[in-house]
């Protein structure tokens, strides 16, 4: 019993410490955004790494998700002769939910891990200390551009993923399941409102903040050499993915509840 209580206490303590670290890192980074220097070169470099280099994995994920969604929806709707709703279900699911969540998970795996590993390596090789001694604020130079880049790039990636996913659903419905293309497009667009699209983008930006803060904080506060970098990277990916899934529920409840 005492062991169980000790373990629970340690887990709670660790959770509180990490939540505190994320909150202070976020607050410190946002505070710095109000003044120069903004390190625009670093920001553009990070935007390219987060946005452009994530495109292949995001496009592939979206394409196959749209295709599978079309297949599954068609099979279910066929049971009560409502196949024409396939387009609507594919587009609504992607735009409101699957687009931001799946892109978030892919970016958390690719970018969150890269942030944690890169900053973690810089920490254990004293490169972050070196920045300070060269009169450069490490949070401003390393974390701020990464956080801005991932927050701005996530909605853009989600827009691309939405279109690719909807096209994947269209391709399967029209070319494999022989649905009427005009009816498919009409049903896809007629019921969709701008709010559905925006809500996905708000979620994407929020997930971007989570990925950026968790990845950077884990790397920045990494301890213990190569093993520490490995642990920080794993933690960054796991915590980012969990946070995306949990916060998705609360965001959905807040926006549509």
């Amino acid at each position, binding site marked *: 019993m005492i062991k169980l209580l000790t373990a629970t206490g340690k887990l709670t303590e660790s959770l509180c410490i990490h939540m505190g670290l994320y909150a202070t890192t976020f607050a410190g980074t946002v505070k710095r955004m109000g003044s120069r*220097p903004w390190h625009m070169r670093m920001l553009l470099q990070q935007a390219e790494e987060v946005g452009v280099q994530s495109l292949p994995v995001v496009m592939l994920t979206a394409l196959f998700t749209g295709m599978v969604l079309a297949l599954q929806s068609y099979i279910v709707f066929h049971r009560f002769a409502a196949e024409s709703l396939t387009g609507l279900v594919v587009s609504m699911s992607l735009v409101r939910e699957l687009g931001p969540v799946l892109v978030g998970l892919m970016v958390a795996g690719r970018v969150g891990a890269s942030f944690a590993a890169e900053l973690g*390596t*810089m920490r254990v*090789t*004293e*490169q972050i*200390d*070196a920045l*300070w*001694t*060269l*009169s*450069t*604020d490490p949070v401003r130079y390393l974390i701020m551009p990464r956080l801005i880049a991932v927050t701005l790039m996530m909605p853009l990636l989600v827009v691309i993923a939405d279109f690719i996913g909807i096209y994947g659903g269209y391709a399967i419905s029209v070319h494999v399941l022989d649905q009427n293309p005009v009816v498919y497009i009409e049903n896809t667009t007629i019921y969709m409102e701008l709010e559905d699209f925006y809500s996905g983008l708000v979620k994407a930006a929020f997930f971007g903040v989570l990925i950026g803060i968790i990845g950077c904080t884990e790397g920045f506060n990494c301890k213990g050499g190569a093993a520490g970098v490995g642990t920080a990277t794993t933690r960054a990916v796991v915590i980012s993915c969990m946070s995306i899934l949990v916060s998705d529920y609360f965001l959905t409840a807040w926006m549509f509840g």
Partner: protein
Amino acid sequence: MNGERPRISIRGLSKRFNSNVVLEDVDLDIMPGNSTTVIGMSGTGKSVLIKCILGLLKPDAGEILVDGENWLTLPKNEQLQRMQRIGMLFQGAALFDSLKVWENVSFALLMQNMGKKEAQERAIEVLEWVGLHGVADLMPAELSGGMAKRVGLARTICHKPDIVFFDEPTTGLDPIMSDVINRLIVRLHKGSGTTMLSITHDLKSAAMISDHIALLCHGRIHRKIAASELHSDQDPMLRQFVEGRAQGPINVSHWGQKIEEAIDR
């Protein structure tokens, strides 16, 4: 000291990590233009001392005065501004992997908005000063250990700091490369009159680059002597360290004692 104010004055500095007391009431003065080396066993807190002075670690107690100004009470942005006067050579050089050699060397200048061309020219000039030619466009991963250390030294002095810190400047280098680094440090000290604080357990290096040597032992500065007295001073702890004996007044920690006992058996 002719009433001259120390450039760096450390008063009652203490630092502990959980229950492990690393520094306890450390006092140390370094006069302008002086080169002081802190020697001591591994794990005695030499690096912690430098990190506390630089603001990389927050001490539990004490004050660090640089030209009479307590750096520990300054806000972060003012501490950063003061860093423009500081140069630091890290043990592993700590070069930025993603930047070219010349960008590493002139990093501080680029951050102070110096033009790219001018910064590159200054970097090449300093690289030549440390004996490196044609490496400006290489990446740090393409350098040998000795070259990386010299690039680190070039980065340390490129922005012409008043005070330079060296963390184990010759550790991990072969004797010839160690001599090269030591000579460069002496040349820098004599040429520019820069105030220096080094930490090392390489006694040859300490004797060569310093005016004064301080022994850090059991969390305190146990003894400070002129570098020329290193081999003649009769302090028992200093003698034990200089002669490299396991037996003596320096308590080689709990597990260290056990190793010693095992060897004796």
